[in-house]
């Protein structure tokens, strides 16, 4: 079928107009999609008693069953009106080092490195508990997570594991990422984050080392930041999360 618009062909004119409308929509949504942040893509389950409050506030002849809405991890923070989302609170013990990164802008990886996760990660009911299992070896397992690319469009790796272990009095994160490709020679690197249950703050633990071991800051409570996130970051000197998550999981 020819794409040429024939002025005397109403069907072709209508098709051309439809194509223009589609193109306009595409431009509009692409622009919006480029602004997506990790916060935009995570849904929190409302408190379990919220439906009851709604139901009792409306006059109903019959009371329906409580709708099934996934319950996310329990939050016990009591923040006032938070700062705008544009100021994502990337509290990073290594941020000072990160800001010294050479500011280089490179677009040559963009076709291969898919940008910005589009899929939301619903924080499902986990009970919010982090358990400590008893092990016989020296390092005590505190919490663990299977991290996957489920819901994430970036296809760098299928899955991995993240374990929080105690070495004496110190906590560290042990990452096993068997199928993550090397970034050697590329203008990008992998960074590991821990995100809180309110999706307000995230802590950067820095570059993913080849050893897979990342020491946790003394003042970081893993129960307050249970979401482990691995992102791919360009070498642009920007310390904030790129929005390009490649693996994610919740510590349990």
């Amino acid at each position, binding site marked *: 079928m020819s794409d040429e618009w024939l002025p005397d062909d109403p069907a072709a004119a209508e098709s051309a107009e439809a194509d223009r409308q*589609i193109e306009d*929509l*595409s431009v509009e*949504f*692409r622009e*919006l*999609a*480029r*602004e*997506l*942040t990790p*916060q*935009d*893509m*995570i*849904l*929190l*389950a*409302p*408190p379990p008693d*919220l*439906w009851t*409050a*709604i*139901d009792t*506030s*409306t006059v*109903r*002849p*019959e009371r*329906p*069953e409580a*709708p*099934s*809405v*996934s319950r996310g991890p329990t*939050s016990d*923070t*009591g923040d*006032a*009106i*938070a700062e*705008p*989302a*544009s100021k994502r609170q990337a509290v990073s013990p290594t941020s000072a080092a990160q800001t010294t990164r050479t500011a280089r802008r490179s677009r040559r990886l*963009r*076709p291969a*490195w*898919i*940008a*910005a*996760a*589009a*899929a*939301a990660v*619903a924080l499902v009911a986990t009970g919010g508990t982090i358990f400590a299992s008893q092990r016989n070896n020296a390092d005590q397992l505190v919490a663990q997570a299977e991290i996957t690319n489920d*819901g994430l*469009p970036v296809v760098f790796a299928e899955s991995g594991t993240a374990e929080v272990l105690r070495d004496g009095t110190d906590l560290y994160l042990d990452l096993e990422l068997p199928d993550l490709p090397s970034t050697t020679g590329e203008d990008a690197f992998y960074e590991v984050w821990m995100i809180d249950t*309110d*999706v307000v703050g995230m802590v950067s633990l820095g570059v993913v080392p080849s050893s897979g071991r990342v020491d946790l800051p003394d003042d970081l409570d893993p129960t307050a930041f249970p979401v482990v996130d691995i992102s791919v970051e360009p070498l642009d000197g920007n310390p904030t999360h790129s929005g390009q998550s490649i693996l994610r999981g919740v510590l349990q």
Partner: protein
Amino acid sequence: MADLDHRFVSGEPGALAEVYAEHGSLVYSYCRRRLDEETAKEVTQDVFVSAWRARDRFDADRGSLRTWLMAIAKNRLIDLYRQQARRPQTFSGVTESGVDLVDTIADHDDELERVASRMMLATAIRELPERARTVIELSFFSQLTHHEIAETTGLPIGTVKSDIRRSLLKLKQSLTTAHEVANV
């Protein structure tokens, strides 16, 4: 979803519960972007109760219930900003002149609108059929051309184009609102 929208408008028993199950997380998460847990819960409750009581003002044939609910939520958040703005001790550095107040509220309004649009877009993309979602993600986020998407996915170019066309129309439908939300 369109059928649920109509059932909601008609006041069918159980429709509110289904609407809440469908959109409760999104509205609550949106409120939670600006509010503490307790206040976000109160505002979310207010949104659904208000929407239910004003459901006759929603035309299910002209727009998306989801967008209408989010617009109500945005208005509630703006109301809270106005309340906060009227407490001088918490609004330091800004005079109470009408211009300053309006400019600041307008900024909040624009930003809240943008946040809502982004969250609704992310949700709508997630709801697309798997193949269409993959195609849209490759188009939006990796900025591949139709031919590059076809090569990447192995799909015929015609399928890629039709998936994109249908998906864009679906996204537009999901993000369209044509209702007055003032006084809701």
